[in-house]
Structure formats: C-alpha cells, structure tokens
C-alpha cells in the first residue's frame, strides 16, 4: 500500500502552538491523564467550549467528535502509551473566523505520512487506519508539530 497522496506533507515546526500567545482567545486549556476512560470527558469538554461560542452547528458535532476521538485516542494510546503519569494537554482557541484545537502528548511522536491509504483496493477492506483520512478531509487544517507529538486541528466556524 502506498502513502496517502492527499495528505499534506508533515511540517517540521518545533515551536508548540500550545504555548504560542499570538493565536486568538483561549477558551479551554486543560490536561488529562492518559487514560482512555477519560477520552469522552475530553471530547465533551471541547464540544462544550465550542458550541456555546456558536462556532459549531449540529452537523459539525459528530464530525468533530470523530476527529477528537481519533486525536485523543492516538495521543493516549500511541503517544503516551496509556501511561497515566503522562498528560495529554489540550488547548482550544478561537479567532474571528476559525476554531482551533491543539492536543499534545509526551510520547515518541509518529510520522503521519507513513499511514497507508485506506481508499486503495486493499485499504478499503482493512479494519483500521481511516482516522487520519477523515480528519484530513473534514478539517480545514491538520498540522503535526514536534515530530507528531502535537496535533493542531482547525476549521472555519459553522456560521461563516
């Protein structure tokens, strides 16, 4: 199976967007222990930060939930290897046009370009490996920082 041709190549940026103050208003900044039991709580916290701000509509919610589930599960399972002493740090911030979600783990990173294409003939019948494709298609921006340990997800607000 070949690499995902539609994925943007990973950018080698070493400054974490978690700390950068130049991004808009922070509406959520919180860390969770690396435990899959907490994943739903993390997803709900992000949705609760974005829905009252009017940045999402009803159709956005299931799609965002899928993307968050994917990002948080990857950070907990593959990044921090479910080591509860390692946090997953989450920041949600807004500018006038878009919302941004950053999730950062403390693992060894990964190479998103090495994930095989799930839409090839073999990939279609595979029983895993579709998460990145869904995120890349629905989000306006999906960027990895720090060798894959930090993920930034962004999309235009629903009413724009």
């Amino acid at each position, binding site marked *: 199976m070949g690499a995902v041709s539609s994925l943007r190549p990973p950018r080698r940026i070493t400054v974490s967007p978690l700390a950068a103050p130049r991004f808009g208003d922070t509406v959520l900044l919180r860390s969770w222990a690396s435990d*899959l039991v907490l*994943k*739903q709580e993390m997803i709900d916290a992000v949705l609760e930060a974005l829905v009252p701000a009017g940045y999402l509509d*009803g*159709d956005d*919610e*299931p*799609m965002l*939930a*899928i993307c968050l*589930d*994917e990002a948080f*599960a990857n950070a907990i399972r593959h990044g921090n290897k479910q080591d509860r002493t390692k946090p997953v740090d989450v920041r949600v911030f807004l500018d006038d046009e878009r919302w941004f979600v950053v999730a950062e783990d403390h693992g060894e990173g990964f190479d998103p370009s090495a994930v095989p294409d*799930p*839409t090839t003939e073999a990939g*279609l*019948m*595979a*029983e*895993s*490996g*579709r*998460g990145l*494709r*869904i995120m890349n*298609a*629905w989000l306006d921006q999906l960027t990895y920082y720090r060798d894959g340990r930090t993920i930034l997800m962004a999309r235009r607000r629903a009413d724009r």
Partner: protein
Amino acid sequence: MAGIDVLRFEERDGVLMARVVAERLVDLPVLDEFRDQLFAQATARPKMRLVLDVSAVTYLSSSALGKLVAVFKKVKETGGAMIVAGLKPALLPVFKVTSLDKVFEFHADPTAAVLELQRKRF
C-alpha cells in the same frame, strides 16, 4: 463481554434486522461486542440477509468503520448480503471520504431495506 447493550435482533421473513441501540459506536468494548454478536449470527446463519439499522447512532469512530467492514466481509464470506439502513445524513461524509460509500449498500428506510433483501434471490 456481557452487559453491553448494543444490538437488538428481529427476524422478518428470512431477513435479519439488527437494530443498533448504542447511540455511540465509539469505544472498543462496545465495538467488540457489536462485531462478536454479528459474527455469531453470520456463523449460525449462512447466506444471512442482514439489515443493519443504524438510525439511533449519532456518533461513530473510525474504529467503528473497521468493525462494519469486518462484519461486511464476514457476511459476504458466508454468501450473504447486508444493507446499512437509516444512517444519519450528518454521518455520511465519514463514509464518503473513506470511499466506504462505494463498498456498502445504503438505504434511508430500514423497513424498505428489509423488503429489498426479501426480494433478493441467492
């Protein structure tokens, strides 16, 4: 795993209607139960004609798509057919971007899907 309420089965003149009662097809214990129950049905009923009613599902994860593919393959292997019925329109993009919209057969209405499979001959 016992105690997880995921599916309800109903026989309708040779077609098995499996209604997903879990609103979130997300977490692995739920997904494993989902797959195991449907695998057991496919094993017990070769050439199973299956309507998977997902109208109650509001969220699913990429892992859920993997389980759907696993069930689809199992049904095909045993000579059966499967229709995914009642998918919420908000979830369709997930199937489109993964090209699974070309793999699965969809029907908006579960009852109409049952009729369609009843007509299908093997």
